[in-house]
């Protein structure tokens, strides 16, 4: 079981979170080409080591997070809010 240090809620259990997907993908504009969308949606690295993932703190603050996780050790290196506005607000208050 993983534990994720939510920037808002603190350290919480895996069971409260939902895995999103590859956090390193920059999705193209909606009017981008089929090829660009194909690349963004279907092409994935199978990383052995640290990868960026998106997780939602579904049963918590509902924040979408970018999590750097080691796929070998499950070690979590960083957890950041996905939305810059959330980062700013939490930065102000911390």
């Amino acid at each position, binding site marked *: 079981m993983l*534990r994720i240090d939510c920037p808002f809620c603190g350290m919480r*259990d895996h069971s409260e979170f939902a895995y999103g997907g590859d956090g390193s993908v920059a*999705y193209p504009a*909606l*009017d981008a080409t*089929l090829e660009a969308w194909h690349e963004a949606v279907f092409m994935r690295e199978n990383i052995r080591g640290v990868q960026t993932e998106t997780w939602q703190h579904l049963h918590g603050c509902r924040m*979408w997070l970018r999590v750097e996780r080691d796929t070998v050790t499950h070690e979590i290196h960083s957890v950041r809010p*996905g*939305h810059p506005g*959330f980062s700013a607000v939490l930065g102000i208050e911390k």
Partner: protein
Amino acid sequence: MTARRLESGGIIDRTKPLGFTWDGRKLGGFAGDTLASALLANGEMIVGRSFKYHRPRGIMSAGVEESGAIVTIGQQARQEPNVKATMQELYDGLDGWGQNAWPSVRFDLGAVSGLFGRFFAAGFYYKTFMGLPPFEWGKGTGLWMKYEKLIRRAAGMGAASLDPDPDIYDHAHAFCDILVVGAGPAGLRAALTAAEAGREVLLVEQDFELGGDLLNDPLAEGRRREMIEAVRRAGVRVMTRTTAFGLYDHGVAGLVERVADHPAVPADHRPRQRFWTVRSEAIVLATGALERTIAFSQNDRPGVMTANAARAYLNRYGILPGHRILVATNNDSAYGVAGELAAAGAEVVLADLRTESHPKAPAGVALLEGVAPLEVIGRAAVRGVRLARQRGGTWYPDESVASDLLLVSGGWSPVINLASHRSAKPEWKKELACFLSGPMKEPIFMAGAAAGLLCSEACEASGENAARHAMGLPIADVPLRGAEHPILPIYEVRLPGSRAKAFVDPQHDVTSDDVRLAHQEGFVSVEHLKRYTTLGMATDQGKVGNVIGLALMAEALGKEIPEVGATRFRPPYTPVAIGALAGRQVGIHFKPIRRTPLHDWNLRQGARMIEAGLWQRSWYFPGDGESCEQSAKREAETVRRSVGICDVSSLGKIAVLGPDAAEFLDRVYCNSFARLPVGKARYGIMLRDDGIVMDDGTTWRLSEQEFLMTTTTINAGKVLSWLEELLQLRWPELRVQISSVTDRWAGLSIAGPDARAVLGECLNNSAEIEPEALGFLGVKKVRLLSCIECLLARISFSGELGFELYVPSGYAEMAAQQLWDHARKYDGCLYGLEALDVLRIEKGHVTSAELDGRMTLDDAGLGRMASLKKPFIGSALRQRPELQRADRPRLVGIIPKDRSQRFNAGSILCADGKVSGFGEGWITSVAFSPAQGRWIGLGYLAGGQTAWQGKVLVAADPVRGSNVEVLAVEPHMFDPEGKRMHD
């Protein structure tokens, strides 16, 4: 073996006698006994039969590593097989019996299979039943099918009850600074050290008594009580009868607490067991060590046990386990028990393999040097032991010693299982002849015997150090020191050419010959050895046999043990009941149940309910004696004729607010929302990134910056998370806020030609729903007669004049009752999901049966909804060439060729005369249409209706065994122009 209870000694309570039943006979024991100690005290020698050979087995240990005394406890629903008698606390009324034997463990007819022992050697099943690879793969399968039942009956463990478990199990969560596993001298001291430094400590112990090996030492009782008292005073949270069975990521440990495994029936409302998830900052593993045996001929006979087990039975339980006792050892640890047994009145001979360096024989003990046990004499009991002596690497027979109990000490295996769960590599320590845990990156610290220390003073010191490590404090050095005289490793004693049975893993009946056979046949890696022989795969998971097996394989390979390696231990350390894992999530709590605000009201009106995801929805409202089909037909007819009221509260509802709300919806939906006027609703479809349809529903514009989105019942949660993902990760620049308001509103659908009249009578101002005031797809806030403010939209799923009224949930019953009171005057009805399905199939409206996560807009016949003026989520990838093929499945209506015929949802649509394979399509939904007077359906068909114009199809239902001739038609099968709902 002629064991007997002593008049005094031990920490059992002789003032509290307990009665129990063994194999139907009434026996007695004392509080503080285990079932094993009580059986021993009663002179029960044979308490089990072995797995394959049905060999008689006695008590072999006094702990979790037990492989002989594996028994069944309890009757009927509470019958629990494979209980280790050595771990089962004795209680008044305990009902136990030996398993894997008929008629009893003392006289077992199955024991004849022992005579055919060579047929049961490693790989027997594979070779006999699977054919000789690679030429005969599978040829033995038929044989296997034939003999499987026989073999399964002959070989195996106890039988579980087939009745539902009557007991309850809890889950629980706990947090602490430091988790200490094991309450022996090291664990107690670690817990005390950390607690005195102000840490919150959780100390868990699998036994029902604290103390670990201190319990087995008659001189340590004072120290034990002192430490327990100190630990309690320091505020340590102590959990006994609790096993830490696994360590997981990020400091998480899994525990099972046996709350009520020691009465026959748990007291009122108490769980039998509790499954704990514990999170800690650091963990100290003071899990002790297990004594190993040695492989030699007939080493599994009743009356052979580990030396330390005898020590426990003597000192903890006050039992003299034998009278003429041979203690065979290769290390110092057995000297103590030899002396204690002699002092208690037994005749003790100590056979030490070592000749050069060993302690002095204790008082009253005869010492034989340089000998080891070669063979046990006696079948059902030990009558004597033949010894052997090694010269030049070969064993030669030596004298025999008459005895009734053989104690073996082949060295110690530290319990590093939990560290192994965290991927710590076992490292072989040659000087101690054991594996110790390798280094760990995580804050997990080994202490005491688990760290290779064998005297209680050193264990205490290492416990203190481990606790200080765990707290990040500096430590004093404790030398890794075993006994005074080094161990002389020995794993097997056998004469050259001997074919005697020497057990490595007695629980799975794996012998030393099996290990050599595995080597001979090429299964030389430890992982292959394990699987080929099943060594270490019994309920003890190799606690007894692993090291011996590895040593024998190393010898066969001519390698050292570390070169052979060790298998990784995996959770659980000891078996965990499935019931504990399930906890309370059984029966009606298997998953949470969602009820609408009208749940009870619907039931009071006679609703039958049906599951829709987690929701309970009203299915149909049967009149006298009506079936579901009859009721749904009547309800659908009533809606088309007058009016019906339906609870649609389960639809997902999402408030979408902010200056960019319209822009956001425009990006999310395939159709346009930017220019949706205030006070209007629109049906929208959203796609996934990959161009497949995700969900649909109506979205209502309440004001310039305020929308109410509805989703399907099933996808409500998914859509909310998806919109949050888009707003937080992809389009943070949009000023939009969303939140679920599903539970805030109850939804009531009022549909039918009389809907307006019925609704009007319930409103403060009925004029505001007149057609001029509220046109088709109009939205407004209205007040009920009671002045409660509601949201109203004029939308229709049924194809009739329809309204959806959203009432604050707490007022739902009041609103529903008012509507129903008026609807009755119009001869209206309440309708459920079944009638709703009839109505929408007639209209060709899609639901999750059609939008199943594989279909595109075009497939569902909704391609024209996609805006050409703006891009939206999925607009790029829906253009993929494969999704554009003309032979993609397309939504069609289905009618039977012969209008009296009925067909089923799930049928495969095949061309006439070609009923095979995947066919040309499939049927998603079927209903009896009162409007058409026949069965109709929706489905997908390659190329769509135009490709099959005038051609007969077969709705093939091979599962239910029917083939019905059908025709494909336009999906809108009733009022295709939509006149009725626009009126």
